[in-house]
């Protein structure tokens, strides 16, 4: 997608989002859109390590929770404004991502995936035993008092999440088209060959895990204000981890637009199902969609689109 067209559409989406906050009063839509955007941000982040670099992360919930609990701690201790907390969350998430990268230097494939799962569980156990944030009991947060010029804090959170997600998509696109991105793709296709060709695989892997960690943490930072009650079970929910994997895989992992499409499709379906049929169908739907798509269309929707375009070009 050409640069101008890309930035144009990004700005258009942002403008549309702001317009919606001026016209639509019904708060339900903001709640639903917030969750879809959160899913999208997590999916874009996951894809940087998963789709671009080829390393599967099962512990997405761990990074998400780092962001959420950073907010809980900073809110309780200092009462900082939200943008600052998002920044700190990003830094922490990035640091942990870096650490994860270092610790898993020699791990590949499924060992890396299990290591990420291990990391998430260790962090969860630590949080469970940390009484300052309420431990397993959880922590209450009062919603932010100021919500700028918006009608309510939910609208403000929606716009915040919209900004964050659009920024993440831009970063993801920049990464994929850059030299860095090509290095990541080389690692994904054949790490040994990449290493032999002079690609600094270690450094690139660290960059990848750091960016992913930072983004996921940022996704989790506004969450406590959204639910006003955070406990380890909801912050470390396996559902977050599954969505983070399912959305990019369904959308297509090779292109930056894959997670976006996947998140829109899966997220919207989930929100609709939530208010029409029973909510456990939600999880079933994610599972079935995931299984069907990867069995029949392993390259995701993006892959299917590419096939059609190629056929059309002939």
């Amino acid at each position, binding site marked *: 997608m050409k640069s101008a067209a890309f930035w144009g559409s990004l700005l258009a989406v942002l403008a549309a989002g702001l317009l919606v906050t001026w016209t639509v009063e019904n708060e339900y839509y903001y709640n639903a859109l917030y969750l879809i955007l959160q899913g999208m941000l997590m999916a874009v982040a996951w894809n940087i390590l*998963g789709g671009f670099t*080829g390393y*599967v992360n099962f512990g997405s919930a761990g990074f998400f929770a780092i962001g959420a609990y950073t907010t809980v701690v900073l809110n309780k201790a200092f009462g900082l404004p939200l943008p600052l907390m998002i920044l700190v969350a990003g830094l922490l998430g990035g640091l942990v991502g870096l650490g994860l990268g270092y*610790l898993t230097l*020699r*791990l590949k*494939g*499924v*060992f890396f*995936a*299990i*290591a990420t*799962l*291990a*990391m998430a*569980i*260790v962090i*969860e*156990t*630590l949080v*469970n*035993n940390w009484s300052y944030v309420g431990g397993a009991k959880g922590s209450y947060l009062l919603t932010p008092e100021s919500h700028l010029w918006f009608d309510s804090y939910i609208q403000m959170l929606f716009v915040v999440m919209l900004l964050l997600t659009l920024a993440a998509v831009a970063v993801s696109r920049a990464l994929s088209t850059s030299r860095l991105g090509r290095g990541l793709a080389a690692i994904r296709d054949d790490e040994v060959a990449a290493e032999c060709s002079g690609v600094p695989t270690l450094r690139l892997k660290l960059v990848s895990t750091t960016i992913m960690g930072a983004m996921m943490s940022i996704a989790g930072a506004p969450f406590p204000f959204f639910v006003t009650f955070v406990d380890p079970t909801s912050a470390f929910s*396996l559902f977050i981890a*599954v969505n983070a*994997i*399912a959305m990019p*895989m369904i959308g297509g*992992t090779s292109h930056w637009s894959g997670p976006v499409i996947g998140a829109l499709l899966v997220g919207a379906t989930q929100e609709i199902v939530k208010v029409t049929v029973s909510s*456990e*169908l939600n*999880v*079933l739907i*994610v*599972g*079935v*969609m*995931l*299984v069907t798509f*990867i*069995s*029949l269309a*392993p390259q995701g929707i993006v892959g299917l689109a590419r096939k059609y375009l190629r056929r059309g070009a002939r």
Partner: protein
Amino acid sequence: MFSADLLANAVVAGVLLGGFYAAVAVGLAIVFGQIDIVNIAHPAFVIVGAYIAYLLNSRFGFDPVLVGLAATPVFFLFGVLLYRIYFAAFERTGQESLSGLAFFFGVMFIIEVSLIMAYGVDYRLVQAEYIGQSWHVGYIDLPLRMLVPFAVSATLAAGIYAYLTRTFMGRAIQAVAQDRVALQLMGANPVRIKQWAFGLGLATAALAGALLIVIGPVEPSLGRVYIGRAFAIVVLGGMGSIPGTFVAAVILGLVESLVSTFAGPSWAPAVAFGVLALTLAVRPAGLFGR
């Protein structure tokens, strides 16, 4: 607080628990350790086995362990079927790493939700004569609901080991694990062998599930806590070594029990992964690995 009595009982409880963990892990040792298929849904199948034991126990009063044994052929056939799908979709096209993982992830969720929709989220328990009874040897307690699963699990592990080393098919499975191309050159069909191995792995889940529900109440999402334990055990044991898997399982059970008794139970979940991390850092081939 540190007394010989407490220590001895913690050790015994840990060994018994670890023995049971081996039943869950042995199937994964075959499927993941030997033929390299990351079936992350294996614990979910164990839960299905537990529910089948519950069904037949509550309706007809059959002993849960016997139900588990009877269910193994069914699980075997299902495993063969599942492998065929997996093979057609992924292995044949060489996509197995990322997509295969995600495939089984999806399968795990489908299983869990289907169980919830069929049985709700209430905990299910079974009744049997030996549940609730306890043998006492000196100051050591041996609750039968732990002892019986330990014995069955040890028998299972021994049986699988014997199968893999003594029978033709068993050795073929080990051969496929080591060198697939060489096997093909010798005229054997690796796909059929892998299919058999996968079925075998899944069959063990039926029995493991029955043992699980003997030990304690079961509900659909219980499988999740076993994912980490099972993979940790397989890696620690040396990726496919059956004796290694059993020893690793006992070690894990022991460490969990000791941590739980002396440091406090709230640290127990991190134990499995602590053990795993240590193994991968110090000796990635595991205890008995090549």
